[in-house]
């Protein structure tokens, strides 16, 4: 084979068998290679094999130890203060696609978070559901005093707002914690139910009315800035044609789809995936409002026009939800 003109390394924290690798990152890389007629080659290093822990991915990208990374902004709280808005429970509805499109609409407002790198796609997953060890709940009041695994900083605020207690732990520690009652439940999306056998350890998964969720997590798929700048214009154009708005709809839909196996497995164990009624959902949303208020206050202190950001984000998500 003819040697490629540019070889790019791509690093992420999941196994090569995980859907985000198999269905998004790998196809993306092969597409770029094909569209560049082999002038670009992308070598993927999954499972943190380049060294370091997932929170270091962003710095590895910025320094160029990896040319492309896919990571969670929540791994480094405080580093992406603006894009955190899309995690908030009353900003994200229940659709990865709607929120991912909304992020692209408002990219100008959060672009400062990413000024040191070249973002390819900032997106979210379909959203957190509450997975409970001891069975279903009818509303937020039933969560009082429970210990719940939090996915993020704002997730922790949300859990506190429900009167429950947030517990932080890496996902691999979750099965043990669920089975030994260290936590009474966890806020995670359905896509990580199968690999960690959460369906075998929980008796109920709870989502809001119409499948709405309790916040989400923001993912960053990005390229090293110098590396991008050093590409010839025609190769840059190929990368551009495969980033941002151009792929947001498709990627968002993909993250909505990859939840299906997790939901199915939970149902297979005879455990319901319970959709709350509208009144209970509204009660959750009201509590979620307190989280947003806290976020606005904190972000405001950091000199961000947080209020405007929340309003724009909400309007945009609404416009993409039908």
């Amino acid at each position, binding site marked *: 084979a003819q040697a490629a003109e540019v070889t790019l390394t791509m690093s992420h924290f999941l196994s090569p068998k995980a859907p985000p690798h198999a269905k998004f990152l790998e196809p993306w890389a092969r597409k770029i290679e094909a569209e560049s007629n082999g002038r670009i080659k992308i070598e993927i290093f999954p499972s943190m094999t380049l060294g370091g822990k997932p929170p270091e991915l962003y*710095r590895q990208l910025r320094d160029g130890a990896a040319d492309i990374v896919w990571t969670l902004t*929540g791994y*480094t*709280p*405080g*580093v992406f*203060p603006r894009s955190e808005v899309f995690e908030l429970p009353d900003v994200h509805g229940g659709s990865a696609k709607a929120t991912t499109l909304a992020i692209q609409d408002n990219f100008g407002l959060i672009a400062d978070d990413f000024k040191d790198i070249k973002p390819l796609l900032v997106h979210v997953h379909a959203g957190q559901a509450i997975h409970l060890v001891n069975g279903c709940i009818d509303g937020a009041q039933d969560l*009082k*005093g429970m*210990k719940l695994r*939090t996915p*993020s*900083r704002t997730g*922790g605020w949300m859990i*506190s707002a429900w009167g429950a*207690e*947030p*517990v*932080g*732990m890496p996902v691999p520690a979750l099965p043990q914690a669920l089975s030994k*009652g*260290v936590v009474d439940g966890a806020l995670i999306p359905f896509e990580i139910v199968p690999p960690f056998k959460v369906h075998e350890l929980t008796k109920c998964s709870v989502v809001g009315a119409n499948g709405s969720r309790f916040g989400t997590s923001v993912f960053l798929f990005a390229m090293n800035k110098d590396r991008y700048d050093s590409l010839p214009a025609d190769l840059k154009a190929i990368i551009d044609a495969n980033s941002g708005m151009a792929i947001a709809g498709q990627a968002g839909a993909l993250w909505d789809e990859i939840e299906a196996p997790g939901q199915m497995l939970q149902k297979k164990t005879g455990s319901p995936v319970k959709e709350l009624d509208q009144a209970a959902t509204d009660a959750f949303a009201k509590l979620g409002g307190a989280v947003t208020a806290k976020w606005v206050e904190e972000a405001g202190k*950091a000199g961000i026009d947080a209020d405007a950001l929340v309003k724009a984000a909400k309007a945009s998500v609404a416009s993409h939800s039908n």
Partner: protein
Amino acid sequence: MKLIDRLASNWALLGGVLVFAIMIVTSVNVGAFGLDRIARMFDANVSGLPGYEDFVRLAISCAALMFFPYCQLRRGHVVVDLFASSFPAAFVRLLDRLWLVIITLLALSLLYWMILGMLETISDNALSPVLGWSEWPFYVPGIISLFLWALTAGFQAIKGLEDA
């Protein structure tokens, strides 16, 4: 060497105090968990320590590095001795000094990088996930540890094996 000896061992003892702190905080947390189990029978709740994992992670990051200089002082790093018995003693001493010099250089480079890492952590405003504590202060004990490590290994390199 006496001074370095004292510095390294007191620094390690301070690291040990952190491990004891983890031990105590964890025991309290486990106790709260147990009480909570009992309280639930009476429809009450006992709260654990929120952000406990954050605390353990940050505390252990300091303690682990604080052990490095003392570990060096006591020559605690594993070496493979299989073939050394067939080497002349003078050669073994020479090798030993050479590796000590390299460890000193390694500790100094890591010191340099870790300072850069800390400055970057400050400018990134990186926070711990649940407690929301700034992460950069937890680099400081590590930086001091690397300095002491370089100092210890450096002196061992000058003094050579017989004094170890």
